[in-house]
């Protein structure tokens, strides 16, 4: 196997008495698309910033392209494209200028930056806005510009922190398509997200993190296989009856979960389970058979309670 482009051993970050990242291990292979999936506050962004060397770690080992980012920040970041969670475009500058000036921070000459910025504007579908002030762009346009800007130094590794938060469905799909092509062209992607569909679309392999620890890792398919069943039956009996009925559903599936509005039955064969429910004389108001998703895995591993 090729040398990993990122490798973390026992990576930790502590703020006072709060442990944001609690000793995680992972490796990212060249050319793969690697995901960090977790609820808000799980330590995903903290991990990303330590990879870029813009946040000092509290413990553990970290190597990016064979260098320690804490000691070789500029050298490591020269290889990285960073797409932050919060856009930080310079609103005083024009659209094209934002790309050009960002490229200047990498010491890139204007002879390179002028054609490159045109290509990136095309990539972001902002050619018509090249001389517009950034302040006049819509949220989706700003996001696309932020992403285009992050590609100006032809990064080997692209760090995307919640890349599609705040985008409409069309824009998300366009972006996923663009990212997929970058990956095909050999760029390594590291993506944090709390969107399951995004993780399933984008990531070859991912780790599920919660409270700074790795809860599970593998490909989306492996995670579903290991932590959920093939299918899920969702039945509703009305909010008062759900809790009473659940005892009678014992043994229909591998596992049941009662939610305020519905009961989830985890099972290998959804249709068969639904027939079994009928045979037991139970008649749900509504029923739905679906394939298990990463969301089921995620909620199983990180719980359903709200995290702030």
């Amino acid at each position: 196997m090729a040398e990993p482009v990122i490798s973390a051993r026992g990576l930790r970050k502590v703020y006072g008495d709060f442990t944001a990242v609690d000793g995680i291990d992972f490796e990212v292979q060249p050319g793969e698309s690697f995901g960090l999936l977790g609820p808000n506050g799980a330590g995903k962004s903290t991990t990303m910033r330590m990879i870029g060397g813009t946040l000092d770690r509290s413990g553990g080992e970290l190597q990016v392209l064979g260098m320690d980012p804490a000691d070789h920040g500029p050298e490591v970041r020269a290889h990285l494209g960073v797409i932050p969670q919060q856009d930080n475009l310079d609103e005083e500058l024009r659209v094209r200028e934002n790309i050009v000036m960002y490229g200047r921070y990498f010491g890139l000459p204007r002879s390179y930056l002028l054609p490159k910025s045109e290509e990136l504007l095309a990539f972001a579908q902002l050619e018509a806005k090249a001389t517009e002030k950034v302040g006049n762009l819509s949220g989706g346009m700003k996001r696309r510009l932020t992403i285009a800007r992050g590609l100006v130094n032809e990064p080997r590794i692209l760090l995307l922190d919640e890349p599609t938060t705040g985008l409409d469905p069309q824009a998300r799909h366009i972006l996923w398509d663009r990212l997929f092509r970058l990956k095909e062209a050999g760029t390594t992607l590291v993506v944090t997200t709390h969107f399951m569909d995004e993780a399933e679309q984008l990531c070859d392999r991912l780790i599920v993190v919660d409270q700074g620890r790795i809860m599970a890792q593998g490909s989306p398919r492996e995670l579903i296989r290991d932590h959920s069943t093939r299918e899920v039956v969702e039945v509703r009996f009305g909010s008062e009856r759900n809790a009473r009925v659940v005892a009678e559903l014992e043994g229909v599936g591998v596992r049941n979960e009662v939610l305020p509005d519905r009961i989830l039955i985890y099972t290998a064969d959804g249709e068969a389970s639904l027939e079994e429910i009928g045979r037991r004389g139970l008649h749900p108001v509504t029923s739905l058979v679906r394939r298990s998703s990463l969301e089921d895995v995620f909620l199983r591993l990180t719980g359903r309670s709200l995290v702030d």
Partner: protein
Amino acid sequence: MTDHARVEADADATALAYSGRAPEHAVMAARARARGVWYYAETVLRGMRAYFWPIVLYSVGQPLLYMVAMGIGLGTLVSSGVGAVDGVDYLTFVAPALLVSTVVMSVTAEMTYPVMAGFKWQRLYYAPMATAVSPGQIALGHLVAVVIRFLVQAAIFWLVMLAFGAAPSGWSFLVIPVGVLAATAFGAPLQAYAATLTDEGFQFAFIQRFVVMPMFLFAGTFFPLSVMPVYLQWIGWISPVWHGTELARLATYGAPLSPLMLTVHVGFLLACTVAGLMLAVRFYTRRLRS
């Protein structure tokens, strides 16, 4: 999308990932380590272009107003009363001091709210932080851009002084670096202080009223500091405006200044600037990496 377009788009994506035109990443890092300060300064200067005309109007209008008010207005009154001040007419006496205090007062605006915008409001500093540039270079780059702006502003002021005949000495052009040095002596520590603030910067109004105004009014700008009672003179001694003003008067009309005091003035301004820069680099690094 037609097949043809699809093929082209694929080619574009490959080009985006690797065009072969970009320098080696190690070269990028080496360039940024060497010249990152200038890269960030360029961004700040480009940002100022949005306020180009206000800055020009202010830079030209401010000295004009002062010269007319002080030279023709107050100057006439002073001349008819005491005659010369410090051996020269009142306008020549007050003009270099006004240059210094104008530039120092302008630095207050540049090193407070824009620093907050960098860290908090627009998070402008966090964009270069993700690149090959380092936090210390961001701090210095911001100050360098402001220095360049003030070189221009001080030069315009000096030209206005020349036009009003208020700069008799052949060395009067030295008021330009003197004014800028006085500005950094106050601006660099202020920048370092602003970098420690995490709230909305309400302190800046306080600084404007209770630090900048006394520094301006009690720094021998309109009358020699020696006129003040001794118990108020200390305000001048710790004010970069006074140290800068003394140097600017020497440059403008050869005001008497002992070599010792010359050293003290230059030393004080340099010390404040260097201390401020060191603190700013430290505070920027701490904040941007936490």
